[in-house]
Structure formats: structure tokens, C-alpha cells
């Protein structure tokens, strides 16, 4: 643990980061920006896992293992997302959200 820092503060920080990511996800008009926001969300959850592991259950390491998995999954997902974006760019020459509203009413 970090001496002098209670768990509440760290959890506060991660919550704020999480909601910054959510805000960005809903507000941004560019697909890559949306991707970045997703990264923020995932990171926030990683820190959450780690901190709870360290503060509440210091002798076991499940939190760390899970964080490793999350990071791996995030990487894979980003790779796939980038490939989709590139493919889409080839089709419609744009990565703006407003051009991919084909599922509209």
C-alpha cells in the first residue's frame, strides 16, 4: 500500500477517470477518439482491480493476474478495432460517426 493514502482516495481517482472515459465515448465524433476513450475506461478498471487487491487482500494476487488479462484483452481489441477502422476508411473514406448511421430508422 501507499503509506498515507487511504483506499477511498484512489478509488475516487479511478472513478473520475472512468467517467471521463464515458464522457469521451459518448461525446466524440471520431472513431479513433472513441477508441481512446475506451482505453481510458479499461485502464480505470485495471487500477481498480490492482488497488483493491493490494489494500484489502495483500497476500493473494488474483487482482494482478486479472489485470494482466485485462491488458491483454485490451490490446487485442484495439488491434481489431484499428483494422476495422481502416477497412471502413477504405469503403467510405471517412471515420466520422455521422457517416456510419446506416442502421438508422
Amino acid at each position, binding site marked *: *500500500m501507499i503509506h498515507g493514502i487511504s*483506499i477511498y482516495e484512489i478509488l475516487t481517482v479511478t472513478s473520475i477517470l472512468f467517467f*471521463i472515459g464515458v464522457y469521451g465515448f459518448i461525446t466524440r465524433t471520431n472513431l479513433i*477518439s472513441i477508441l481512446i476513450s475506451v482505453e481510458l475506461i479499461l485502464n480505470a478498471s485495471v487500477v481498480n482491480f490492482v488497488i483493491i487487491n493490494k489494500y484489502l487482500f495483500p*497476500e493473494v494476487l*488474483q487482482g494482478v493476474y486479472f489485470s494482466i488479462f485485462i491488458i491483454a484483452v485490451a490490446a487485442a481489441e484495439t488491434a*481489431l478495432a*484499428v483494422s476495422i477502422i481502416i477497412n471502413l476508411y477504405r469503403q467510405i473514406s471517412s471515420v466520422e460517426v455521422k457517416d456510419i448511421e446506416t442502421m438508422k430508422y
Partner: protein
Amino acid sequence: MERIIFYCLAAVIIAFGIASVTSRKMLRSVIYLSFVLISIAGIFFLVDYNFLAAIQLTVYAGGIVVLIIFSVLLVHHIEMELEMAKASKKIVTAIACLIGLGVFLTAIYSYDFNAINNSLTTTTADIGTGLLSYKAGGFILPFEVISVLLLASMIGAIVIAKGKKLTEKNNQPE
């Protein structure tokens, strides 16, 4: 001492996070993201999870950010200004997020976490044995699953990114 470092890191995280999601230029947004990721690695260092911090730096701040920068370069004029969403949408979303944040914080602060004070250092060896152990509490199965996932995502990425041209090229010489 550590407190000050933590507060600095926290400030950096939040500031650069906000900057990342509100920036009008694409590349700056990515750079701010990388700062956020590095700061998070810093936090990991503070809690003595060195291995995890290293992984964070390598995979996230190294691989993923580079990947994103590649895609930005491929699909963008870097100098182009990004559009922002309508003001009404921004405000509504901000309010929703704030309310959500309030919910989170209420939940967090009303719970009695009994934190255990300790100063254990975790070595890589511990992580390794735990991750690959067959005994109860071992994570060998998820480890293998993740490997399969990575494989699948790699193949998927290749297939998606191949596009029509390459498939046609393959079919033509027949």
C-alpha cells in the same frame, strides 16, 4: 513523500484525461492518452507491483499507443481539426456522468473498507508461479484462454484488414 507523488500522479491523470477527450487535434489526443497511461504505470510502481507496471508500460503505453498512432496516420490529415459534438449533447452527457460519479462515490464512501496495512513486495517469481500453477488458485486456464484469444484476434485483424483487393488478387491467377 509517497503521498505527494501520488497526488501529482492523480492530478496528471485527471488533467490529461480530460484533455484527451476534449482535444480538437487527433495526435494531441493520442499523446495525452500516453501520458495518462504512463502515470498509471507510476501508480503501479507506488504499490510495489513492478511486474504489472512493466507490462503496462510495454503493452499499453508502448504497443497500443503506437497502434493508434499508426491508424491515425493512415486515415487522417494530422493538422485537421476535429469536430466537436453539439453543445446540448455535451451538457447532457456531462450531467449524466456527474450523476453517475455521484452514485459511485456514494457507494464507495458509504462502505467500510477495512484496509490492511502492509508492505509486501511482490516479485515476478510470485506472479509467475501463481499465473501458471496447476494447483487450486492457479490461473493456468485463463492464461491459455487468453492465448487463444490473442491468436483469434490476430487472425481476425488480418482478415478484416485484408479487404477486397487482396482476395481478388488471390482469386485472379486461377
